[in-house]
């Protein structure tokens, strides 16, 4: 087995994957082969340190259907890194099954020790961190924004075009882009996060007003986005939603369940506002106010103005 392989259909994430791939190259002394779906990304990956880029000519472009094709291309792999988008995780699981390989989903760290890939990841919805060792070939998916894009390589790699076969059993009949407010909460420096302590969607301006004063954004729990539909999906934080690391995370009217906090616990300062003194959010917070958010938020908003 020789070679480090990487793939993401997300061009930004694909470039980020080169950073851990280059570290693995240093540890294993094996070349990097990147798989790409478009020519521009392929050229970028070659310029940034991939020794070889395989430009896949997929007719459908449906990433989940490329499992068998990608398996054939990475058969020689020692390690395969896949961008941890939803499509990427599906593809990675298929490829790992076909390679008879272990797969770490959402790896937080990667290292080579004694001829194995050692990874860490979250368990029990954030309660614990597990470390596992994977025999080669090993597969890992890497969440977006885990690594920076590397500097340009001294010697650019080469690009080859490869025809691939799609999974024609699946017909994609329609795609509707998620309505986006154009706001990426993962980039916000300060977040006001809304939970079920808010009684109605009409009360959200309380949070929005505070976020505006803070020059931040409003985020929320899964329930607010997926059950109540008060805020777009892209704004919910947690194990299956966004992971954020703002300077200030202001959790308002949310209890602080581990499934939520796993997405926010790397924030610099966490502030909780909750009427229930026993809510777990206070254990997860640097500062807290026990009180009615309907009284506290207007006061806090006014205090920040002055």
């Amino acid at each position, binding site marked *: 087995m020789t070679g480090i392989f990487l793939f993401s259909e997300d061009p930004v994430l694909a470039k980020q994957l080169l950073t851990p791939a280059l570290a693995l190259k240093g540890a294993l002394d094996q070349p990097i082969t990147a798989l790409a779906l478009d020519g521009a990304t392929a050229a970028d990956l070659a310029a940034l340190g991939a020794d070889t880029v395989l430009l896949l000519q997929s007719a459908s472009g449906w990433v*989940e259907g490329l499992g068998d094709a990608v398996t054939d291309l990475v058969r020689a792999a020692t390690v395969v890194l896949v961008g941890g*988008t*939803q499509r990427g995780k*599906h593809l990675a*699981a*298929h490829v*790992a*099954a076909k390679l008879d*390989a*272990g797969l*770490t*989903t959402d790896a937080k760290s990667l290292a080579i020790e004694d001829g194995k890939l050692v990874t860490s990841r*979250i368990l*029990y*919805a*954030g*309660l*614990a*961190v*597990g*470390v*596992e*060792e*994977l*025999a080669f070939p*090993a597969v890992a998916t890497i969440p977006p924004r885990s690594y920076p894009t590397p500097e340009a390589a001294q010697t650019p790699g080469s690009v080859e075009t490869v025809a691939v076969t799609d*999974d024609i*059993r*699946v*017909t*994609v*009949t329609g*795609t*509707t882009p*998620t309505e986006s407010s154009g706001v990426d909460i993962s980039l916000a420096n*300060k977040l006001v996060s809304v939970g079920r302590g808010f009684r109605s969607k009409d009360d959200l301006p309380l949070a929005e007003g505070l976020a505006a004063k803070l020059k931040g954004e409003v985020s929320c729990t899964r329930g607010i986005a*997926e059950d109540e539909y008060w805020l777009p999906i*892209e704004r919910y934080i947690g*194990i*299956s939603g966004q992971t954020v690391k703002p*300077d200030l995370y202001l959790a308002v009217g949310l209890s602080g369940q581990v499934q939520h906090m796993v997405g926010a616990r790397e924030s610099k*300062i*966490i*502030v909780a506002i909750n009427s229930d*003194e026993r809510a777990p959010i*206070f*254990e*997860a*917070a*640097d*500062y*807290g*106010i026990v*009180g*009615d958010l309907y*009284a506290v938020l207007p*006061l*806090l908003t006014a*205090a*920040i103005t002055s």
Partner: protein
Amino acid sequence: MPKFLVLYKWTLDEQDIKIKSDDLSLDASRAKGKISDFDRNAIEEAARIVEAKGGSVDVLTYGSAAVKQSLKDVLSRGADKAYWIADASAETADAVVTAKVLAAAIRKIGPYDVILTGEGSSDQFNQQTAPRVAALLGLPCLSLVHKLDVEAGTVSVTRKLAVCTEQATVSGPVVVSVLSDINKPRIPGLKQVLGAAKKPNEEIALGSLGVSPADLQPKAVRRSAKGFVMTRKNVVFKDANPADSVAKLVSSLVSEGLF
């Protein structure tokens, strides 16, 4: 009439797992079992479709001897028959082993029109089982499904991804993983619980599946699992007058350099 098979996992309830303060190890001694949260959505979805249009719902699980405790629960949630594989290998099984065992069992008890499972398990949330089982069985896989229709051998779904929603169709057998927002799982009533006792369940001996000892060795071996401890300042203001608490909070945040 569609034949459904729902794959479910009997997991520890993470709410009951405590972190030991001395070495951050996990204490699951008081943790009760539960049907993994998202697998309940998968069972519910199959049961609803069958109740509306006919068909059948079998369920299948692989776990330690503790999986026997799950049978009554799973059968009270709308399943017609439960298959279970109880073996000590499940204690160390990774997604590789689990998928091989489940695929081997499906070859034995199948075929099924739709094999359903949750988007990920509550404990590991590896999100690998559906694509892996599909790959091993040579079936197409539709993951992260938020709407499911089964009509005359055609399965039509809406998948919900971060970037888009996507409609897709498959003719013939398919593996589907469902999102938690596809439905609200029923809470079984007394009648369902009593009815569950009369429904059939069948143990499948691992030895009967032709899975080799090597296949039961995980490729991903757990080295350690330690509690994640968040060290925070935990300063809580609870003045009778909220304005006092707000003033203290603002001055704290100023001293943190946030304003």
